[in-house]
C-alpha cells in the first residue's frame, strides 16, 4: 500500500477555478443521475402486484375450532409463500404461479379403501358444508401467520371412500407439471411434492381439506384449487394443489424428510423444545409484528392434539 507524505503544494497544482466549478457541476449531475436511476429502478421493482380477486365462496359456517387472533393481511398471505414448484424466493410463487391451471382439476382418492374414487373440483366444493377455519400457521423457518382458511374436515372426504383396517397412513401428492411449474424443471426437491399423516392425524377434526382463503377460492400461490391444512404441524406438512390422496399401510416417504432427514421429520409437530439442527424453534416472528413471540407447543393446539402423541418421545419422533 502506497503511503504518500503530503508534499508542499506547487503553484501549478492549484486547481483552476473553472475546473473546480466544472467538477462540482459534474458531481452534482452524476449524483442526481444516480438517484434518478435508483428511483426509476425502484419504481419498476415495486410494481404493485394485484391481489387476484378470486370467486367468492358463500354460505360459510363459522367454526368453534377457529382461533380468535388478529388475521394476517391478505396481501402478506398471498405474497410471502414457500411453493418451490414456482421458485425458491418468497415472492416467486405470487409472481410465477399464474401459469397454474386450476380447472379442470380432480383428486384421485385410492389405496386401502373400499370405494376408490376420483373427485372433481366441483364435487369437492359441494362434498360438505364449507366452514371458515381461522388457523395459526407456523413455518419451520420461524415465522407465522393467522389465516382464515375455507374448507371442511378431511374425514368428510375419507368417509366417502371407506378406508379399510389396513389404512394406517394417508399420503398427499401435489401436482408436479413441468409445463405449468417452472421450479419442477429443476431438481430442487424430489418431485412430486409428497406429504403424509398418520391415520388419526388425518382424521382429526382440525385437519381440513381446504378450498379457499378469506372467503374466496384459493389464490394459485397458496395451493389452488385444493390443499390440506394441518395447523399443529410446521407449514410444509400442509400439501398444496393436491392431485392424489392415498390411504396406505406403510409410513409414506415425505419430500422434505427425503431432502434433509436430520432436519425435517415425518411428524414435524410445532415444538419449541425441539430445535431445528441449524436454528432455534423457541420463538417465531408473527408476520406484521415487530417483536418475536414465544412458539407454542403444537402451535397452541395442544389441548386438541397432545393426546395423539401420549407416550411418544417427541425429540426422537420430530
Amino acid at each position, binding site marked *: *500500500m*502506497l*503511503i504518500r507524505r503530503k508534499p508542499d503544494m506547487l503553484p501549478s497544482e492549484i486547481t483552476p477555478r473553472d475546473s473546480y466549478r466544472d*467538477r462540482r457541476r*459534474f*458531481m452534482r449531475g*452524476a*449524483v442526481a443521475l*444516480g*438517484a434518478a436511476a*435508483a*428511483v426509476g*429502478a*425502484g419504481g419498476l*421493482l*415495486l410494481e404493485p402486484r394485484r391481489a387476484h380477486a378470486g370467486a367468492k365462496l358463500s354460505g360459510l359456517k363459522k367454526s368453534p375450532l377457529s382461533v380468535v387472533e388478529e388475521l394476517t393481511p391478505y*396481501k*402478506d398471505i398471498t*405474497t*410471502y409463500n414457500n411453493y*418451490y414448484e414456482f421458485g*425458491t424466493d*418468497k*415472492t416467486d410463487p405470487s409472481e410465477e404461479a399464474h401459469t397454474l391451471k386450476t380447472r379442470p382439476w380432480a383428486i384421485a382418492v385410492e389405496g386401502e379403501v373400499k370405494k376408490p374414487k376420483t373427485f372433481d373440483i366441483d364435487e369437492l366444493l359441494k362434498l360438505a358444508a364449507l366452514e371458515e377455519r381461522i388457523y395459526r400457521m407456523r413455518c419451520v*423457518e420461524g*415465522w407465522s401467520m393467522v389465516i382464515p382458511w375455507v374448507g371442511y374436515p378431511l374425514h368428510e372426504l375419507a368417509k366417502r371412500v371407506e378406508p379399510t383396517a389396513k389404512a394406517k397412513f394417508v399420503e398427499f401428492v401435489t401436482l408436479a407439471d413441468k409445463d405449468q411449474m417452472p421450479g419442477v424443471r429443476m431438481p*430442487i*426437491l424430489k418431485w412430486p411434492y409428497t406429504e403424509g399423516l398418520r391415520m388419526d392425524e388425518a382424521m382429526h377434526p382440525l385437519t381440513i381439506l381446504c378450498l379457499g382463503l378469506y372467503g374466496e377460492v384459493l389464490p394459485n400461490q397458496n395451493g389452488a384449487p385444493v390443499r390440506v391444512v394441518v395447523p399443529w404441524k410446521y407449514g410444509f406438512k400442509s400439501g398444496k394443489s393436491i392431485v392424489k390422496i392415498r390411504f396406505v399401510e406403510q409410513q409414506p416417504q415425505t419430500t422434505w424428510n427425503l*431432502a*434433509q432427514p436430520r432436519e425435517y421429520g415425518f411428524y414435524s409437530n410445532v415444538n419449541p423444545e425441539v*430445535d431445528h439442527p*441449524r*436454528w*432455534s424453534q423457541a*420463538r417465531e*416472528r408473527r*408476520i*406484521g409484528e*415487530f*417483536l*418475536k413471540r414465544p412458539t407454542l407447543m403444537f402451535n397452541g393446539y395442544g389441548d386438541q392434539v397432545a393426546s395423539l402423541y401420549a407416550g411418544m418421545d417427541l425429540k426422537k419422533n420430530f
Partner: protein
Amino acid sequence: MALANPKPSMVKWIKAAAFAACLMPLASLAWRGLHHGLGANPIEYITRSTGWWTLSFLLITLLVTPLRRWSGWNWLLRLRRMLGLYAFFYACLHFTTYVWLDQFFDLHSIVKDVIKRPFITIGFAAFVLLIPLAGTSTNAMVRRLGAKRWQLLHRLVYLIATCGAIHFWWLVKKDITEPLSFAILLAALLGARLAFLVRRRQPAAAPVRARSQAI
C-alpha cells in the same frame, strides 16, 4: 497487458463516484422501507440484503489486486480501502439488524445462538475478525504497524470472506444457488492470487540454467 492509468485528478472523481455508488444498496433499502417495499417480513429482507452486500463488497475488495495485476491499472489500489470499509459498514448494518431488529437485544438469546448455531457462530467470527482490519485501515495505522505486519493482518480477509461464504451456505434451507455462486467467485479470486504466487517463483530457476550454459 497494461492499460493507461488515468490522471490522479481523474482518480479523485472516480473515487467520489464509487463512494456514492457504494451507498446505493443502503439507499435502496431505505427507499423500500419508506414505500412498503420490504415485503411481508421486512426484518428478514433487511437481514438478507445487508448480508448479501457484505459478502459482495468483500468479493469486490478481493477483486482489486488480481484486476490491477492483470490490467496494469495501479490506481485501482486507491479504491481498495474504501471498498473494504464498505464491506465492514454493511457487516455492521447486518449485525445490528440481527442484534436489534431480529433479537431486540435479547442478550441471552443472542449468546445461545452464537454458541449453538454453527451458521451464526461462523458469521459472528467473520464479523469479529473484520473489526481489527477496519481499525487498522488508516494511514497512521499502516505506519505504526509497518507495511509487513499490516499486510499480514489484512490477509485475514481471505479467512473472513471464506467464513462469510460458509455462513451463507449454512443458513439456506435447500436452494444453494446463491451461496454456491459466492463460493465459486471467492475460489476464483483466491485462486488468482495463488496462480500469481506460483508464477512469481518460477523465473528464479531460469537464470541459473542460462549461466551454467554460458560457461
